């Protein structure tokens, strides 16, 4: 495309990108109900609502006309920035464009729509599983431990990330539902994503760990490439294998 064009004269180039994007799947079209629930979420994890871009998914709603403008206003009032709408009938698409939002076709466009979208959805159960409830790595249930985690001790962050400001000694164990960050030598066992979060990672300043585990996939010290020992690394799940890479 741009082979014959002088690079300096380019104002921009188009690039395909895959960005992580939060999808807010609406199960109610009532702006008041959405407002109430957002207010509750905001108090639980304020750090999450930092003008976070969201895609409003209306696939599970069966209403041809939506109060899209009011729903967007509610979102913005809670520091969520709607950038696009996914799914919905033609009037929804038109009003999205009118509001300056993008529109995406429904995700399951090829599949026949199931009946469950017509059936009333239980309000609580499905919402708790939604992306809002567990944004990776954010969580308000995190924990900071200052000092040395000693042999025989176990430090756990059952809901979020665990930060250890100090060393984790041999025979000690650190566990977190989210990621484990060790600002010191990691000589003991570190288990991240203990509830199965595959995006959890382990970070440490000096790797000598007896055991590394992310979402149940583990590596023993024996399995670790010896040239990584003693260096600062991150450990994350790559498929079903643990990948250890140096942090430089």
């Amino acid at each position, binding site marked *: 495309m741009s082979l014959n064009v002088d690079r300096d004269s380019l104002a921009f180039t188009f690039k395909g990108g895959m960005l992580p994007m939060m999808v807010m799947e609406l199960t109610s079209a009532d702006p008041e109900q959405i407002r109430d629930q957002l207010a509750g979420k905001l108090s639980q994890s304020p750090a999450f609502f930092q003008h976070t871009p969201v895609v409003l998914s209306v696939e599970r709603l069966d209403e041809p006309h939506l109060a899209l403008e009011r729903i967007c206003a509610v979102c913005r009032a809670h520091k969520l920035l709607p950038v696009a709408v996914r799914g919905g009938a033609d009037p929804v698409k038109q009003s999205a464009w009118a509001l300056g939002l993008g529109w995406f076709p429904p995700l399951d466009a090829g599949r026949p729509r199931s009946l469950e979208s017509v059936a009333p959805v239980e309000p609580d159960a499905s919402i708790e599983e939604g992306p809002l409830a567990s944004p990776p790595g954010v969580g308000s249930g995190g924990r900071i431990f200052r000092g*040395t985690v*000693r*042999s*025989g*001790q176990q430090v756990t962050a059952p809901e979020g990330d665990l930060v250890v400001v*100090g*060393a984790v*000694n*041999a*025979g*000690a164990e650190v566990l977190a539902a989210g990621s484990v960050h060790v600002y010191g*030598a990691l*000589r003991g066992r570190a288990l991240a994503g203990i509830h199965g979060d595959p995006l959890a990672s382990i970070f440490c300043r000096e790797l000598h760990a007896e055991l590394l585990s992310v979402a149940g996939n583990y590596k023993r010290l024996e399995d670790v490439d010896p040239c990584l020992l003693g260096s600062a690394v991150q450990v994350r799940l790559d498929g079903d294998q643990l990948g250890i890479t140096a942090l430089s």
Partner: protein
Amino acid sequence: MAKIIVVTSGKGGVGKTTSAAAIATGLALRGNKTAVIDFDVGLRNLDLIMGCERRVVYDLVNVIQGEAGLSQALIRDKRVDNLHILPASQTRDKDALTLEGVEKVLETLAKDFDFILCDSPAGIERGAQLAMYFADEAIVVTNPEVSSVRDSDRILGLLASKTRRAERGEEPIKEHLLITRYNASRVDSGDMLNLEDIREILAIDLIGLIPESEAVLRASNQGIPVTHDANSDAGQAYNDTVARLLGEEVPLRFHEYQKKGLLSRMFGGGRR
């Protein structure tokens, strides 16, 4: 009020009793009224190291169970006036100790003494936990080898959680690292962990470093704490340790390997 110091390690055979005897002697020689208590019920050793095994009549268990008074059980040291030993029982086991009993003994001693040293048994079970429970300070004795360092690490975890100060949320126990049986030449050749590695892993202040020395074995077999052997390297190192415990600034010695020069090789080195 006396300062209660536990001498502990987790691992056995690293020099707890030798250190407790040597440090208690050093404290007493500097004019502090000092008691040293053997908590190793069933494997009594402190009386041998202190050379008072023939004078044991009553012991810690007798006192706790009300069979003897504290003053009857305390043995006054032959060499230093203000040093007293409370021996352990050889015929009982550690279940004979109770928390209330130990507390009462320590409370009574605390009224008369400046320092109370508790010589802990090895392990992390009841005996070791009772020895550390009421402590204000802890001396963690560690040898320059990985298993000893790991056990000391475990003990440090217990000191921070299973003691009265920890349970009451008071100011934590002051922890001191005492490295014993340090052989600078074997450290130099990589057979032993070096000082910096140990300090980095355990992350507590170093109170002393005792070189591996013939003087220690000689002293324990003779029943004379090595502190009395002021010419020996180990005796001097324990004296330095005691000085630091009392707040003095003393430079570290005996941690560097000095290769023997030609002359000293020809004419023999100094006494070790």
